[in-house]
């Protein structure tokens, strides 16, 4: 049986590159002259809400990947990467949330881009990891090997942050656009896709748990509706379902927190309960995972606000 694992080195190299990029960015940012621009308040507010959403996702990823990679004993040095990027993304998001200036921030930008990249690379690693397991792309490996969907969450955080920066960058006198498309629509569609991805991940893991508790159906029923409503608003006429969409997104945001509560109860139900936390925190339902729904719902709300502030139809 082959047991050499070259991935460790590749990953270390990659994290070095990422680190260097970020560092370079910091240097660049320090040199950039500061030109204040006046932006409509609403756009900046939306951008800050996106930062908050990105931060919520980053926090969820940070703790979740810390626990999961601790289980994996960090046997591969690259497993530290998501912790670093998620921390940076969280920091950038906190900074962005507090920042009411109407322009993008180079460091935040770089960090967000790095987060997006990390997620992609991570997905690659996880696919590689699964392909090495006997059975290949089987249910068994989807359940228990490196989770395919998890790294995408850090990408989502990066993406939301990146979009937030684009918002701040948009032309002050026109409705905000990203790549020439109304910003609300872009963010709405991306968030909607992100929600569906997260639904798939929780669907997979709840299937692994055999939906033993009816509440486990909530994250595979509520968020898809939110995603559909948001997607419909982002792609079609905005006003039709505005109120419903908003309330549904709010409920989804709450669901994320409620999920954490449910998962905490699940951990307590493990053998030995909290006294056996070193096992149950890792083997039990992941406490930090559900708030990723909250983060995405927050982004959806921001998109919805943009769409309503700048109706383009």
């Amino acid at each position, binding site marked *: 049986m082959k*047991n050499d694992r070259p991935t460790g080195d590749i990953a270390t190299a990659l994290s070095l590159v990422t680190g260097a990029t970020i560092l370079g960015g910091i240097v660049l940012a320090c040199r950039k002259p500061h030109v204040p621009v006046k932006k409509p308040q609403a756009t900046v507010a939306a951008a800050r809400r996106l930062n908050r959403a990105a931060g919520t996702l980053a926090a969820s990823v940070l703790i979740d990947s810390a626990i999961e990679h601790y*289980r*994996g*004993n960090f*046997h591969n040095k690259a497993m530290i990467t998501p912790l670093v990027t998620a921390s940076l993304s969280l920091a950038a998001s906190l900074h962005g949330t507090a920042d009411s200036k109407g322009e993008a921030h180079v460091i935040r930008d770089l960090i967000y881009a790095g987060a997006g990249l990390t997620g992609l690379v991570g997905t690659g690693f996880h696919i590689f990891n699964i392909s090495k397991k006997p059975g290949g792309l089987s249910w068994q490996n989807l359940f228990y090997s490196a989770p395919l969907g998890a790294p995408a969450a850090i990408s989502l955080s990066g993406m939301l942050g990146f979009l937030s920066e684009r918002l701040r960058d948009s032309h002050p006198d026109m409705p905000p656009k990203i790549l020439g498309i109304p910003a609300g629509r872009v963010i709405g569609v991306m968030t909607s896709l992100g929600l569906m991805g997260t639904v798939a991940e929780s669907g997979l893991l709840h299937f692994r748990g055999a939906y033993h508790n009816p509440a486990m159906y909530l994250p595979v029923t509520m968020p898809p509706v939110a995603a559909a409503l948001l997607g419909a608003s982002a792609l079609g006429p905005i006003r039709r379902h505005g109120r419903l969409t908003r309330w549904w997104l709010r409920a989804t945001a709450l669901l994320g927190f409620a999920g954490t509560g449910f998962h905490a109860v699940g951990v307590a139900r493990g*053998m*030995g309960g909290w*006294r*056996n936390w*070193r*096992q149950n925190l*890792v*083997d039990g339902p992941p406490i930090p995972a559900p708030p990723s729904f909250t983060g995405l719902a927050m982004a959806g709300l921001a998109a919805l606000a943009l769409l309503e502030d700048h109706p383009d139809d």
Partner: protein
Amino acid sequence: MTDRYPGYDVLAKRRTPSWNEPTRQVVNRRLAVPREPRYLTPPLFTVLDAVCQRILPQPTDRPPVPLAALVDDKLFTGLQDGFRYARMPDQGEAWRRGLAGLEEAAEAHYRLCFVKLSGEQQDDILRRMERGELSGGALGDMPATLFFEHRLILDIVTVYYAHPTAWSEMGYGGPASPRGYVRMGLDRRDPWEAAEAHDGDETKARLENGFVG
């Protein structure tokens, strides 16, 4: 024998979630087994003791396992296997005959009692029994090989590997309830499992084994 799991002591986990109350009581009782014979006569017990040292020579750097006392305890409490070969007497009788048979063989071959023999000589007698070369006398109609394999070896090996000293030396995680294990894959160790010393990193393993709780 080099220490593969330096510094690992399974008893260090006794107060952690890896041990439940029934397990603590069971192991406490085992560690406190009376060292004097309660079933065998003292002369036979000394033969048993000598046999045990040949069957399972003990590590010098870990607490010794009172093998003979543990075998005697099994006979005393009458814990049975659930079966008996048709050609074998019950376990107590088998042990009495078997030990007496060894004593007789020692006299016959070396004109000394078993405990006075050198290690090699004792092994020689034991091998003769294993090969079925001893018969009659105190053994009676009990087949020597059957006694050796299914009574003598089985009982001694069982009590040794049911003892924490053995668990520690072989790096076995030991009792595991309510806490079980998390890291299931190859080459993965939970923080409460023994760390193995690989070439040149004995210090690292020793350090990790200091934290197995």
